[in-house]
């Protein structure tokens, strides 16, 4: 076989594999959108073409769920939770990198160790803490435990290694205090890191399921993920309606990701070049 032919075969194979991967990742979304326009009976039959039940599905979803309230609950938790997590965890990452000492390295090791504790093991003690603080069935109880995220602290510390210490020294000579350096020098320089962390944390918060499920107790505080799960668990679920819910639950994360795609990729590569 000539080298040219080989190259062609290679690229054909590559396209084939990529197409397969693209199909596998896009098809569920496609089917979700199609499903939203079909009746449950059609969905069960495996119909993959557009149907005419979209407005009926939307109507039954709106009738079953207080949509604005539930979306507001999810948005509130995701936005407040993300903002606080970024602030607190990036401060910690900055601190660990800028003020190194033996003791701090040990503390950092402990922080990293918490990454290895599965959430299931923390759940019950955490639940007792929240209950004794009277925070059960509040959104604060969902946001609080996620603010100091070991993973995000780790992420910021690693990214901070590329932050030029000279910048900090120069700012010090110019008379800036530490919090000013953090706020006016570090944050703008690291903005792609923040953007990438924002995408990750926002998605974690938005899709968070187990902990909100344990903490939230009433229909009025539930998030969109909980509502969709409860609709889908009926003995005979109305899949058309469930699909409307999953679309609503998916759109914000898609939107955030596409809006920040460029910064996300940059951030993953490192803010400082």
């Amino acid at each position: 076989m000539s080298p040219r032919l080989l190259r062609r075969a290679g690229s054909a194979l590559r396209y084939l594999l990529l197409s397969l991967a693209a199909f596998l990742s896009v098809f569920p979304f496609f089917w979700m959108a199609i499903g939203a326009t079909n009746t449950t009976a059609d969905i069960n039959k495996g119909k993959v073409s557009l149907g005419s039940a979209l407005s009926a599905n939307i109507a039954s979803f709106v009738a079953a769920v207080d949509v604005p309230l539930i979306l507001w609950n999810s948005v509130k938790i995701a936005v407040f939770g993300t903002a606080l997590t970024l602030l607190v965890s990036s401060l910690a990452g900055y601190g660990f990198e800028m003020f190194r000492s033996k003791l701090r390295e040990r503390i950092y090791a402990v922080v990293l160790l918490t990454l290895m504790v599965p959430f299931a093991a923390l759940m019950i003690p955490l639940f007792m803490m929240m209950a004794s603080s009277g925070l059960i069935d509040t959104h604060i109880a969902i946001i609080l435990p996620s603010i100091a995220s070991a993973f995000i602290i780790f992420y910021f510390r690693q990214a901070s290694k590329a932050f030029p210490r000279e910048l900090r020294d120069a700012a010090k000579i110019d008379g800036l205090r530490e919090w000013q350096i953090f706020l006016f020098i570090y944050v703008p320089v690291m903005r792609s890191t923040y953007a990438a962390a924002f995408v990750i944390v926002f998605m974690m918060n938005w899709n968070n399921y187990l902990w909100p499920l344990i903490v939230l107790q009433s229909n009025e505080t539930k998030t969109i993920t909980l509502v969709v799960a409860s609709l889908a668990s009926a003995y005979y679920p109305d899949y058309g309606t469930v699909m409307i819910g999953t679309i609503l639950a998916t759109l914000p994360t898609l939107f955030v990701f596409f809006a920040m795609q460029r910064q996300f990729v940059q951030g993953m590569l490192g803010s400082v070049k």
Partner: protein
Amino acid sequence: MDNLTWRGLGLRAALACAGLMAAAPAFAAEITIWCWDPNFNVAIMREAGQRYTKTHPDVTFNVVDFAKADVEQKLQTALASGTTSALPDIVLIEDYGAQKYLQSFPGAFAPMSGKVDYKGFAPYKVELMTVDGKVYGMPFDSGVTGLFYRRDYLEQAGFKPQDLQDITWDRYIEIGKAVEAKTGKKMTTQELNNGGMTRIIMQSGNGWYFDKKGKLAVNDNAALKGALETQAKMIKAGLIKPATGWNDYVKAFTSGDVASVVTGVWITGTIKAQADQAGKWGIAPIPKLDIPGAVHASNLGGSSWYVLASSKQKEKAIDFLNEVYAKDLDFYQKILTERGAVGSLMAARTGAAYQQADAFFGGDKVWQNFSDWLGKVPAVNYGIFTNELDTAVTANLPALVDGKPVDAVLKAINDQAELQIQ
């Protein structure tokens, strides 16, 4: 350690914005209920609540729905952590899991014997919520089983409805062979990795994986042996159209691929949804095992209401359940008509909805029949490891079909189960 400090800081910050984020406060005489199906038990409990509020205006209800697995997860977490403030007043628990909760968390649920007249309910529903002679809970929907069959296919094969009354499983297999020979349709369908059929036949034989005291009883268990052998015979005779998953299973009998199905009464609505098959269906009692104590009645699924002992509204919650679920016959007619729910209160059968003949089933008095069988379902102890045993049974059933002696299969099931539940 580090995490804890952050949390401490967070708590203080949290208090500052508590006003912004706090949920609605609880009302004095509000009863909170957890359950899981918006179209079924949630809707039914809302109806029950409205009825009670009419006569007791001081009591209101907050029915919260989560996914079924989530109700269990939340209940488990709150009970395990001893956080009673996070529990509802009433919770719905699936019958197969009832003993697990009652025995794992003694004192967590309020006994209701003496306050509720349990003699009015199907005995098996009361047995599954009894621990040490005390009855906890209010029996709710039943999964009493029936043999749903296609009149047209059976007739084509030369069988009349009477030919399906009071038959054994062996006779059912003979009929199945004749039906397939004449119509080309398989007699029934089954999800082979689902333990449902084993449970149905076993309970109809007055047995379970556990004895009356809840001890593992697999070896020398005549009912379980009968259930396994019956299924192996059906598979060997080629009577079963195998289904992969629930949707496939439902499709097999709603699309006319099979001539009959043995399952819980709750499938009635699904069958009746096929309007073009009206008049073509019939129901009969399920076939019987040829062992002493076996009957033509069994159960698959079902759930019941439980009042938490820690509830501040405990007395009101019990009174509510008692007034509606143990006394209000009209309520049972309404939930049967609107939601297809068959309750466990025997007296409900005297109501108008229960007496109706159904043209879809060729004029059979469907609900009277199910109500007859409901009272005959053998009362067994579901024990606390039914799911584990299901896994062991489905894993070992193929060996029986391949010709392994049944006692050896029972021993294998027993050994696997002992490993899992020790």
